[in-house]
């Protein structure tokens, strides 16, 4: 049962990811990307990581992709951008990346066939996630928070000159 569900979710993920790359309409590509993220969340759940599955939906599908769509709505609308995309996606462009990916794929198949990795079979509860994050991986959490702080200060700085302009306008 679980194996069947896994293969269905994996097939959906692969198909939608392929569609993300080949679509010329940015909005359509993004919708396929969302579906791809959702199917990866299903895979996480089947592997016994419900917390990671929920975060995949809340953060990737629910927040980051909304921002992507937000940017697409503001910047690339209309037929012109579709034509432009079509021009970029020349069939000959696929040969190089395709060959390189094939090498990686063969390597991965070789490794998986050599020693099949089994999942632990124990569901990873939110509590365990919290304990590992703030235990052995505390340094990574601190580094991520510093990165976020830098982003915060950067965006504040970029937005500040517009704030001055607006204050003068309203006064």
């Amino acid at each position, binding site marked *: 049962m679980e194996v069947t569900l896994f293969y269905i979710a994996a097939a959906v993920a692969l198909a939608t990811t392929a569609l993300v790359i080949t679509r010329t309409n940015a909005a359509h590509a993004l919708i396929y990307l969302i579906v791809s993220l959702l199917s990866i969340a299903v895979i996480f759940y089947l592997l016994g990581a419900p917390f990671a599955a929920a975060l995949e939906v*809340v953060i990737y599908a629910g927040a980051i992709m909304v921002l992507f*769509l937000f940017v*697409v709505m503001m910047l690339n609308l209309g037929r012109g951008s579709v034509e432009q995309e079509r021009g970029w996606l020349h069939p000959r462009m696929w040969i190089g990346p395709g060959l390189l990916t094939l090498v990686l794929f063969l390597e991965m198949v070789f490794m998986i066939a050599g020693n099949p990795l089994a999942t632990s079979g124990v569901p990873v509860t939110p509590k365990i996630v919290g304990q590992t994050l703030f235990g052995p991986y505390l340094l990574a959490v601190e580094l991520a928070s510093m990165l976020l702080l830098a982003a915060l200060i950067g965006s504040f700085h970029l937005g500040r000159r517009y704030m001055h302009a607006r204050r003068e306008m309203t006064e």
Partner: protein
Amino acid sequence: MDIGLLMIAPVLLGALVGAALLVWWERRLLGWWQDRLGPNRVGPFGSLQIVADMLKLLTKDDWIPPFADRVIFTLAPAAVVAGMLMGFVVVPFGPGLHVVDLNIGLLFFLAMTSLAVYGVLLAGLASNNKYSLLGGLRSAAQMVTYEVFMGLSIMGVVILTGSFNLSEIVRAQQDVWFCVPQILGLVVFTLAGIAEAHRLPFDLPEAEHELTAGYHTEYSGMKFGLIMIGEYMSVILTSAIMVTLFFGGWLGPDFLPPIVWFTAKTALIICFFVLLRAAIPRPRYDQLMSLGWKYLLPITLFNLLITGALALRGSA
């Protein structure tokens, strides 16, 4: 597991019928509070008004604008309703009365409300219309913003319970409802809930004075009906989750069964949402955003800090 499968049909039906009834109930209540009659002609107290409305919507010409993106335009209303219906899956209506008892129940609710944004966003994008696009953009910014506060405001409850499981959250409120120790969380969750459901006073994505009807300007017939039903379902879902998190869920004195308590509390919260709509005017868009980032964010962080410190002191 079996009871969960049996619950699916009643929950689906209940959510849809509840949303339909709410349309009528809201108009009656608004009429009463604004000193006018409201719909009172069709059936007893106008209660069949919604049937009449539905017949009208079903027989209307279902028109897709030629300039719209057909596929997304058709899928968007379905996404609105599907996201909301999925949210009802984790609501515990009584002890053991739920479709599924996920131990990440609360996160699942947050995930489904965050997916519901897409319905609105895609409707705005696919309509290919200035007003729809502006409505969609507004709703994206508003909902992503208020999702942050919604998530943070309920973390206090999670700290006090020690679990994301909604049934366990209800059981943890045996002695005192979380609306007392988590009063700040409750205030922020209420505001975020209204903003997520984009209801008046926070209905800026569809503000009719400036954007005609915002993201659903181009929708007609049953597609518009679905969007409207989705909005009312999100009111019911937010109220039900609010009751579960802050007002003791199904808990209550023994003379009534738990599900009655749950329904009664939810209905009361819904009436409160309708009262807010009747009483408060709509803020400007920048006011809405600064309310969120300048006031609600510090309040939730302060609440989390205090709750965490007290929990640590209690466990030490």
